[in-house]
């Protein structure tokens, strides 16, 4: 094989800087071969090595009595009782989705599901968190159709319900959209599979689709470099998802796991065969020898370099117990899938690659894995960051017509009904979806128990841009508030940290602030981070996305019959606000609609937040309240409108509400103060709820009553549900066209 001469320059093309190249040469005591350079380049890429983020991620709380598996494995796992564990993780697929929205999003969903079922868990629910550019940007429509189509196309076809997510439109994502996918699975707590290759001599078995030239350097390189003019030639063959094959792979893997044949198993994701084998060997403190001639190939004449770095989808690497090879073959044959023994576990802490009888790579594991570079990059707030916080409300005129203002908000692509999205997703398959998309959190029951899990994903990146520390805290507490409103107790989170180029101090500062915000909020709520993902270099031509630390929250409820939804249930019920409304408009959708993007995000007191949660949780468990809805974008007025509108199929209930407060009326109606929940209840329970609130020092205000077919708020707002629904339900279809 005539391969390129390895030089510092070639290393640079592989995204390795001079210093890193020198470290490689020093670590192995010679110039690496071309194949070895490829291996180092992916293992040392930001995506695989977390070299810029590790030091900070260590500050996150990752332990707790219910944590069975924290960060470091394919996914996190938490004890939910009844001998079961919830396995979950969120992951980004941003760059591929911008290059080819349908396939990029589809393969993102496929990848995260593999991370979960490699742990032995049966996936029971997916979420998708999406960020697009301005909705009137010429490319946005195309991207939205492609991404939503791809998520549905893959999720619907593999039979895992997509039960929720979130979606925002912001010019800050015009050239760099975000597609974060989350999967939750259930497994017997004593049957969690891990990915450390042990047992010298055990066979290494390749299962799933054949290997092609798909996505070479895809996730690893693309996700570790900015977008720009250079991207064109870097662009790898786009990975095409095959959900049908993944469904077979899912069933085959779970079936095999019942057969006591597996030592370790890992998905071949970013950097495919390379990272899966290196990581498994490193975790097992063993070594692996691979014979590339035995790898099932889809294309002619593939080189070792290509075979090792291919990111073909729907593939897994298994370390089987010696002697159980036939069991593996039998199970995979049943599901019409390839299973090939391609190597074995060794004891020399080396990764050895053989091709046509020649050893084409022979590298020590240590420098590849643990020994990968770790940076504490300079972090400093930019001047803009401070300028952004300046806002003088005296220069903001009050609206002449509050009805118009509310209709304007209900028409906002960031607030309007998401039905256009979720009706394209199967959210029913597997028959566990107790609360479908359209309420604060989705609720999926756990068959064989009385329990259910509530799921929500959140992040307001406008807040994060104004103050990454507070914004990240709010992302955590809002997602927690969402599951609390459903009747669950926050259990744990998975976080997906989407940021710009970490080599820029201003970006690194955003990242560090956000990590600290998550850390402090999680500590206050007593909620651990059990898995997550970092996506840096979300930039195009030097323009970074707004910091977007997306939080996926999983909540647990012991009695599924005690769940609650956000919409009003009955004429005559009393409407109560838990929490206090302050004169806060910074970062609000209301100001954004007027083009005002400066200010400070809403204030957050974690103590108050936990009290509000305590009251709401107890009230739901005691059966006091019939609906609970978190106040988020658009404030109290929008939240009340949603309480009236979101229960569409379930009848139409209006509300008559009085609001007092010594603050600007627009802040009263549209301000986005945190730690607020709107509940509705039968009048006879009012007393008990009030006591509960007092006991937890939680502000308690009777707002009014569920009544009629209009929403009336004091003398400011009076609209029919019909006219509100018209706007709220058509806002997305009107702009995006038929799904």
């Amino acid at each position: 094989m005539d391969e390129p001469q390895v030089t510092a320059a070639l290393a640079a093309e592989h995204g390795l800087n001079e210093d890193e190249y020198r470290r490689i040469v020093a670590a192995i005591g010679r110039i690496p071969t071309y194949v070895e350079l490829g291996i180092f380049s992916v293992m040392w890429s930001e995506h695989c090595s977390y070299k810029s983020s590790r030091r900070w991620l260590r500050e996150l709380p990752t332990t707790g009595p219910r944590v069975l598996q924290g960060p470091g494995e394919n996914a996190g796992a938490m004890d939910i009782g009844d001998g079961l564990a919830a396995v979950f993780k969120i992951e980004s697929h941003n760059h591929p989705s911008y290059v080819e929205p349908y396939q990029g999003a589809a393969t993102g969903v496929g990848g995260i599901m593999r991370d979960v079922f490699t742990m032995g868990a049966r996936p029971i629910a997916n979420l998708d968190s999406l960020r697009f550019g301005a909705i009137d940007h010429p490319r946005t429509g195309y991207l939205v159709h492609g991404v939503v189509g791809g998520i549905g196309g893959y999720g619907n076809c593999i039979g895992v319900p997509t039960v929720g997510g979130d979606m925002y439109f912001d010019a800050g994502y015009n050239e760099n959209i975000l597609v974060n996918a989350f999967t939750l699975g259930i497994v017997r707590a004593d049957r969690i599979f891990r990915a450390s290759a042990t047992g010298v001599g055990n066979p290494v078995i390749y299962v799933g689709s054949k290997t092609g030239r798909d996505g070479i350097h895809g996730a690893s390189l693309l996700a570790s470099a900015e977008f720009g003019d250079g991207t064109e030639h870097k662009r790898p063959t786009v990975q095409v998802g095959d959900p049908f094959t993944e469904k077979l792979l899912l069933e085959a893997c779970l079936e095999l796991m019942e057969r006591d044949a597996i030592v370790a198993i890992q998905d071949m994701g970013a950097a495919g065969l390379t990272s899966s084998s290196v990581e498994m060997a490193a975790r097992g403190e063993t070594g692996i020898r691979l014979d590339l001639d035995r790898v099932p190939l889809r294309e002619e004449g593939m080189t070792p370099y290509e075979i090792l770095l291919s990111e073909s989808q729907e593939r897994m690497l298994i370390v089987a117990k010696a002697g159980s090879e036939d069991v593996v073959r039998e199970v995979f044959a049943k599901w019409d899938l390839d299973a090939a023994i391609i190597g074995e576990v060794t004891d020399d802490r080396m990764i050895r690659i053989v091709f046509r009888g020649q050893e084409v790579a022979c590298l020590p594991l240590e420098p590849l894995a643990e020994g990968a570079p770790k940076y504490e990059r300079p972090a400093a707030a930019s001047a803009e960051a401070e300028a952004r916080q300046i806002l003088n409300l005296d220069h903001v005129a009050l609206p002449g017509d509050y009805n118009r203002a509310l209709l304007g908000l209900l028409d906002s692509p960031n607030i309007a009904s998401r039905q256009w999205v979720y009706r394209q997703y199967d959210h029913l398959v597997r028959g566990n979806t107790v609360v479908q998309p359209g309420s604060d959190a989705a609720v999926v029951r756990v068959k064989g128990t009385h329990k259910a899990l509530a799921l929500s994903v959140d992040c307001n990146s406008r807040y994060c841009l104004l103050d990454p520390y507070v914004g990240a805290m709010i992302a955590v507490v809002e997602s927690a508030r969402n599951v609390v409103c459903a009747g669950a107790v926050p259990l744990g989170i998975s976080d997906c940290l989407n940021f710009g180029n970490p080599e820029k101090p201003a970006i690194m500062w955003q990242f560090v602030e956000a990590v600290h915000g998550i850390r402090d909020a999680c500590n206050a709520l007593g909620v651990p981070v059990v898995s997550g993902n970092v996506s840096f270099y979300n930039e195009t031509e030097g323009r970074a996305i707004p910091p977007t630390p997306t939080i996926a929250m999983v909540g647990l409820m012991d009695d599924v019959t005690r769940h609650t939804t956000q919409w009003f249930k009955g004429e005559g019920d009393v409407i109560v606000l838990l929490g206090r409304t302050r004169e806060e408009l910074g970062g609000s959708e209301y100001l954004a609609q007027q083009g005002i993007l400066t200010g400070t995000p809403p204030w957050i007191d974690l103590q108050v937040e936990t009290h509000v949660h305590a009251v709401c949780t107890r009230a739901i468990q005691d059966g006091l309240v019939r609906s609970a809805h978190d106040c988020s974008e658009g404030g109290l007025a929008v939240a009340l409108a949603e309480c009236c509108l979101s229960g569409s199929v379930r009848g139409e209930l209006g509300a008559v509400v009085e609001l007092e407060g010594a603050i600007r009326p627009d802040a009263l109606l549209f301000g986005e103060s945190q730690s607020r929940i709107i509940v509705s209840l039968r009048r006879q329970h009012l007393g008990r709820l009030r006591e509960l609130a007092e006991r937890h020092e939680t502000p308690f205000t009777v707002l009014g009553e569920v009544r009629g077919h209009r929403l009336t708020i004091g003398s400011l707002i009076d609209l029919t549900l019909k006219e509100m629904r018209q706007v709220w339900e058509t806002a997305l279809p009107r702009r995006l066209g038929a799904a």
Partner: protein
Amino acid sequence: MRWGVVTFPGSLDDHDALYAIDHVLGQTAIPLWHKERDLHGVDCVVLPGGFSYGDYLRCGALARFAPVMESVAGFARDGGLVFGICNGFQVLCEAGLLPGVLTRNRNLSFVCEYVHVRVESAATAFTRACGPGEILTLPIKHGEGCYVASEATLREIEEEGQVLLRYADAGGRVTEAANPNGSLHNIAGVMNRQRNVFGLMPHPEHAVEKALGGEDGLKLFRSIAASVAAGHTESVASVAPGP
């Protein structure tokens, strides 16, 4: 009675059908593997929802050649009850066991939502537990549920009373607005001429519990159970076997 639920590669709602039958209906349901020809003496074969063989080429086109389908075809020829849900309906059409074909939704996108369907005839093995004209609320979730057939075929199935379910509004009016996928004549479910094979796009197995979207789906399962209990042949015998 014994139910059999077929699992093709890519079947997805097979578990849900099994769950509806044994957990909710309280009857025996056994899985049938696509590679096997033995139907294990079941009284009714259910072809479940999903994306058999990825629904590549055309929905149901590849599944129809699975070994188990030879047995299902023979079972149907001998008057056995066959119940195709969503993808199962598509497979039955592709296999020629039901007239017509299901094509891409008129609006071209996958739709997951609850719809109302009107029971056109309660005098069949699949609907006897429903009232004539009864409105059922059932979920649909498909991208290719637009029922299409030739003029002649449409005329025939209408005359023969083979159309069992039609998309309608809550009041039972069959309107364009109530048609979620563009199906001709708002057809949501059809039966063969021999009246022992039935396919529908909505998912009755996802409407069997109050806590999860209502119980209307149970009526179809109960109908089949009652028919088997009564020796359903009586509902078959009433018409001369067709071509």
